[in-house]
């Protein structure tokens, strides 16, 4: 049984008072009292992020500095490669890369961002997994590395086509940054780490800021008429339209990188025949699947009608089949598409774009078409 989360046990981010002052509707999320939406509502918040800029509080996520005891960042990179199937050694200074912690069964313990800050690595992990991730790092890397959880920092995301211009007005020259560039850089005079990345499919930035300066920075950003505060509701619909996985839903300890259609995230150097092939938990299974394919696959799903198909809906090969073939792992309404969108797992023979499968919704079988993701083209600045 999960302990019931009450207001008294929920943690607050440094922006909690700001959320309340701006009329947010608060919900428990990963042990934190978080804004699910503000007065504008999920639909307007979503569309505003795609047309101008949205500010998200993602301070509940874990920020971790990983330093090699040798002082050399490449030693920290080699160490982290023992836990992830990604090429971390090749991440250049002031660049970051998407990665996953794997388990011995080839499943995913969490997904994360890994940045090279020159003399150490900077990791951003999911809120719900951050305690386990820290323990995992300490258990496996403490001999060669120090692990510092940066609990004194907040994390803001500024996403959307106006994000660059908004930051420029606060004296942050981010125009030369490309997608997945990162590093320490002042914003409005505060000691920030800025990466050009996000979780919406839009161009945008994630800004790590000392907790003591978080409210001041958020207020300056929200003073810009192009910026609206955005809650977790629109964060979810934005990432779903962008085809991005949500840990604990689309990926978890039972899904492998190949099953989750994350092959792109495993570089050749870590695959069979690569310079540093394997050497991470579950490597045998993960690498075999990358060579030969997996039996099931995460796909995008578009409905013919208007009815949203939600997480947990069972999928069937046809309108009458008795046995399900898979299930929906994320689903809802895509405001930019003005249509329902979903993701789920199907047997690989049914994973080709255009294949029709059926979801059971309130006792009825609704046809869904396997669709390419992202559903909405991303606008990253490459």
């Amino acid at each position, binding site marked *: 049984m999960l302990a019931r989360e009450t207001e008294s046990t929920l943690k607050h981010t440094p922006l909690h008072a700001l959320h309340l002052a701006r009329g947010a509707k608060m919900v428990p999320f990963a042990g934190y009292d978080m804004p*699910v*939406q503000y007065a504008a*509502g*999920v*639909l*307007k918040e*979503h569309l505003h992020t795609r047309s101008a800029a949205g500010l998200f509080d993602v301070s509940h996520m874990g920020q971790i500095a990983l330093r090699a005891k040798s002082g050399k960042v490449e030693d920290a990179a080699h160490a982290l490669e023992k836990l992830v199937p990604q090429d971390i050694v090749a991440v250049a200074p002031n660049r970051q890369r998407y990665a996953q912690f794997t388990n011995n069964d080839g499943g995913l313990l969490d997904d994360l961002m890994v940045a090279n800050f020159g003399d150490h690595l900077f990791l951003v992990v999911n809120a719900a997994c951050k305690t386990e991730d820290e323990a995992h790092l300490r258990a496996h890397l403490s001999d060669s590395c120090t692990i510092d959880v940066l609990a004194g920092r907040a994390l803001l995301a500024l996403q959307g086509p106006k994000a660059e211009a908004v930051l420029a007005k606060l004296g942050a020259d981010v125009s030369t940054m490309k997608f997945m560039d990162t590093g320490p850089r002042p914003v409005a005079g505060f000691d920030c780490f800025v990466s050009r990345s996000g979780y919406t499919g839009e161009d945008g930035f994630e800004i790590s800021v000392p907790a003591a300066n978080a409210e001041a920075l958020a207020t300056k950003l929200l003073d810009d008429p192009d910026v609206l505060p955005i809650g977790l*509701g*629109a964060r*979810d*619909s934005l990432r779903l339209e962008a085809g991005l996985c949500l840990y604990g839903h689309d990926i978890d300890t039972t899904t492998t990188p190949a099953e989750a259609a994350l092959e792109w995230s495993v570089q050749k150097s870590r695959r069979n025949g690569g310079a540093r092939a394997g050497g991470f938990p579950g490597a045998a299974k993960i690498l075999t699947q990358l060579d030969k394919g997996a039996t099931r696959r995460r796909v995008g799903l578009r409905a013919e009608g*208007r*009815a*949203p198909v*939600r997480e947990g809906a069972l999928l069937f090969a046809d309108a009458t089949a008795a046995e399900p073939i898979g299930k929906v792992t994320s689903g*809802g*309404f895509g*405001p930019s598409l003005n249509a*329902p969108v979903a993701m789920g797992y199907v047997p690989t023979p049914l994973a080709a774009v255009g294949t029709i499968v059926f979801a059971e919704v*309130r006792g009825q079988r609704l046809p869904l078409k396997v669709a390419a993701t992202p559903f909405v083209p991303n606008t990253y600045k490459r």
Partner: protein
Amino acid sequence: MTTLYTSDHEWLRIEGDVATIGITDYAQTQLGDVVFVELPKIGRTLAKAEAAAVVESVKAASDVYAPISGEVIEVNDAVTAEPSLVNSDAAGKAWFFKIKIANKSELGGLMDEAAYAKHTA
């Protein structure tokens, strides 16, 4: 004409032996932006408390339960065609369906406007 309310935030406008049913303005503010409405088929006989309609926001789906028993005699196609009507005019243009009241005694358990206002206060 009387308007009655349920504790599940539905309203009923009673005209003779016909009840027009919708969800309250309070309910639509709780739901947020409504993107999908599914209504019962005309001719369906609903038992009291049976799931009769579905209203979905970007985030979540909610059932609308039949507040009283009766046969569905009319549904509002305008609200399925334009679900955002629920947000703009929940108590008016966004009515869901009309039923022929099977048992008038079931109306006795419903709230009047003052009682509903207290319920949502």
